Every structure is written in C-alpha cells, then in structure tokens.
C-alpha cells in the first residue's frame, strides 16, 4: 500500500502507523454520555468496502491523516489532514 500524504507526497505504508476508524468522537456532554462513549470506544462499523482510516505519518511529516481505503482490495482513494487543512 502507498498513501498519498498531502504534505510529503506518495509514501510507502510502512512509514505510517494505523490508528483505526476515523469516526469522530462524540461530544462528552449530554445525558447519554456513558453509552455514547462506550459505543465510540468499543463498537466498530468494520465495513467490507470503503473505510475512513486514521494514519499517523511518523516516518514523515508527523501529521495525522484521514485516508479513504477499500478494506476488500486495500485500494487507497485519497488522504487529507485529519485536523483539516493547515492554515
């Protein structure tokens, strides 16, 4: 696998560390917090197909990236900065 890092360009996947599903964590306020946190921490969609991954480019620019990838083929469709474009 090769990930197209928005800062460094295309790099081998071995430069990156995988965190997991890039789904955003829930707000930690409101009445249902413990249930929401349980779901966010422990439950996974785990789809066969398109998946939004979080990868850390430790061997490069050290950015967190949001990578769209097909879990059936490992095809990578694109990567963006997880925190949004740097200003």
């Amino acid at each position: 696998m090769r990930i197209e890092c928005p800062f460094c360009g295309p790099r081998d996947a071995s430069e990156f560390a995988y965190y997991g599903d890039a789904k955003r964590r829930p707000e930690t306020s409101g009445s249902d917090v413990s249930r929401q946190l349980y779901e966010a921490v422990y439950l996974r969609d785990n789809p066969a197909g398109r998946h939004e991954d979080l990868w850390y480019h430790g061997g490069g620019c050290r950015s967190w990236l949001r990578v769209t990838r097909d879990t059936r083929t490992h095809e990578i469709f694109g990567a963006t900065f997880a925190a949004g474009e740097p200003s």
Partner: protein
Amino acid sequence: MRYSFLNLAWQALRGHRDWQPAWRDAAPRPHYDIIIIGGGGHGLATAYYLAKEHGIKNVAVLEKGYIGSGNSGRNTTIIRSNYLLPGNEAFYEWSMKLWEGLEQELNYNAMVSQRGVLNLYHSDAQRDAFARRGNAMILAGAGAELLDAAAVRRILPMLDFDNARFPIRGGLLQRRGGTARHDAVVWGYARGASDRGVDIIQNCEVTGFLREGRRVVGVETTRGRIGARKMGLAVAGSSSRVAALADLKLPIESHVLQAFVSEAIKPFIPGVVTFGAGHFYISQSDKGGLVFGGDIDGYNSYAQRGNLPTVEDVCEGGMALMPAIGRLRILRSWGGLVDMSMDGSPIIDKTPVDGLYLNAGWCYGGFKATPASGWCFAHLLARDEPHPVTAAYRLDRFETGHIIDEKGQGAQPNLH
C-alpha cells in the same frame, strides 16, 4: 465407518477403491432446530457437540464456500493453554484437555502433537512476567516450566543466544502445548457431526435474517430460505458483516494475519518457539517445512492477503532469533481474516436479538480454542446459559467494564 488398522489393511489390499466420503454434503431442508452459520472448526465442533452431548441432531451448518476455507484451514496450528487471566485460562485449559482426547473421541487422526510451546524471554522484567504467568498456569492445572538459558540451549542450540540487542535469557515452556493438523480437525468434526445427523451445507452464504418482532426465525441464503429456532454465528473475520444483517454492531475489527511456510528441511526445530522481543513464532511441520508467522498487518482488512512490510518484519524477527534459517526459501505465504476483539479475548454469548447467539473475537489464536469453543457454544445454544468456563466471555463486558485484556493494550485491536 470406523477407521481401524484392520480396515486400513483391507483397503490397502484392494487398492483403496472402497473408501466412502467421510461426511454427507447435504442439501438444505426447510427448517432446523438450530442453524450454525460458518463451517469452520468452531461451527462444526459446535454442531458435533450439540448432537453428541445434548442430543440435538436436527442441526445444519451453513458454509458460504467449502468447510475449512476460512481461518481453520489457514492457521499455523499451534495449540497451547498458557494464558494469565482467570477469565481465559480455565477455558483454554479445558480446550487442551479436549485436544488430548480428540483423536479417540472422533476416531480421526488429527495429528495432535504435544511437542511443547516455548516462549522466550530476553530481560529480567520479561522473566518476572513469565514466572507470574507460569504460576497462573500451574494453578489452573495447565503445567509450566521456567527455563534458564542453559536449559533452552539444550533444546534449541541454534538460537542466537548472545544477540547484542535481545540476548536470550530463558523461556517459559508448556510441554503439553504443540500443534495439530488443522484440516483434519475440520474433517474429523464434520464426519462426527454428519454421522450423528447434522446437515453440512456448503456453498450456502447467509445473506439476511428472517425476523418476527425481536426474534430471528431463520436465514436468507444463496440456497433459499431456511427456518430455525436458534442461530449460532461462528464466522470469525466475517462476524461484523453477518451481525450487521441483524442490525448488530460488534466490538470487533477484521484484520489480516499472514503466515509462511519454507521449503522442507531435515528435523531442525523440535517444538514451537516464540521470540519474546518481537512477534515471531515458528514450528516445523511433519513434512519438514518451517511454518511461521508474526504480527497482524495492523489495518482493517477483508482482503485475505497482506502487504510486504509485514513480510519483511516477520522475516527480520526470524533472523534475529535463529540466523541459520536465512538461506531457506519461502515456498508460500497467505493471509486470513481474523476477528480482533477490543480486549483480545473472545465472545461466546447470547446477543440482544432473540434467537441469535454469537461466537466471535478469536483474534489470531482461535485454532487452539476449537474443541472448547464448540463444546461451550453448544452448551449455550442447548441450555441458554453459559458454560462455566466461558462465563466471562460476555458480549456486554465492554460496557460493564469486565474486560479480559491479557496484554493490557486497551481498545486498540491492532495491538492485541
């Protein structure tokens, strides 16, 4: 047919013309008492024990491909019961006891070989951790021996004991651990289940559940609708996909684990050895090939194949441990879809959907669990209560905080 020396000799004289298929390739009937989804070792063992121990014979095992085409036929066949935590150790030790009697039980040669599993340690801290784990094993009746470097050297003289970075200080040995022939385990359970009336139905993928209110009452499959009172899910890496058909979201990620086999050489490695400083484990098959593997690739995958950085990493681990294998050629490598749970331990439990039961979360280590997983899942399906050794394998443990995290890594499946 029961296999014996006598009928083997008889068949040999007749040129092996009269052997019958070991099990029936059945066509689906409209309704069963219990349907097991997934024809791997776990599903087939479950059906076998349902028929044998609980007298429930109106059972079908539905397999989307051919039986044993999942992880049951892809693993590195290591069996052991060297766990630390109380929630795990009693279960894996029960499995080891079942392995010890399996061939007599099934009248099938599963090639169970208790050649020993040795986990190496490389530092004082690691030795202390292994001593603690060994004590837990001894308390559970599993047996364990803490070896120093000299004792390890007597078993495995070719290891790189004086490695500059990770010198080998000793190891934790479970003599009762070893390997078994994975396909034979699948076929043996299939034969035993089929003989007792279980229908084994291949090329039959479950594509949906039939619902009545909060209950599931059957499945949609590529071979039509089939009704059942209860359904047990044992589909390993496909657990999330099949559970999603019943609107369930599981604490599981699917990952790829690779394995490798080398060309055959003369006897070199007597048992199973694991490197304690990286993730590398190796044994030698009866044909002479070295069978080895390491970490999962580490990203969600349904591809049943991995990538090269992991291949390199595994081979580096092997070279650090036993440089003598450096000139061997690798014959094959392959990948399997492992069901990584959030604490690294499995789940055998009812689900919130009435009539649907779950057997999943085996991570990269469920082959050794096959007999006890089948035994305990059958118990749950037949009696609607957990078997005592799987009482901790609850689906709701992540919500209640009763996780069983052998490695202490938290909800990060690629670290377990």
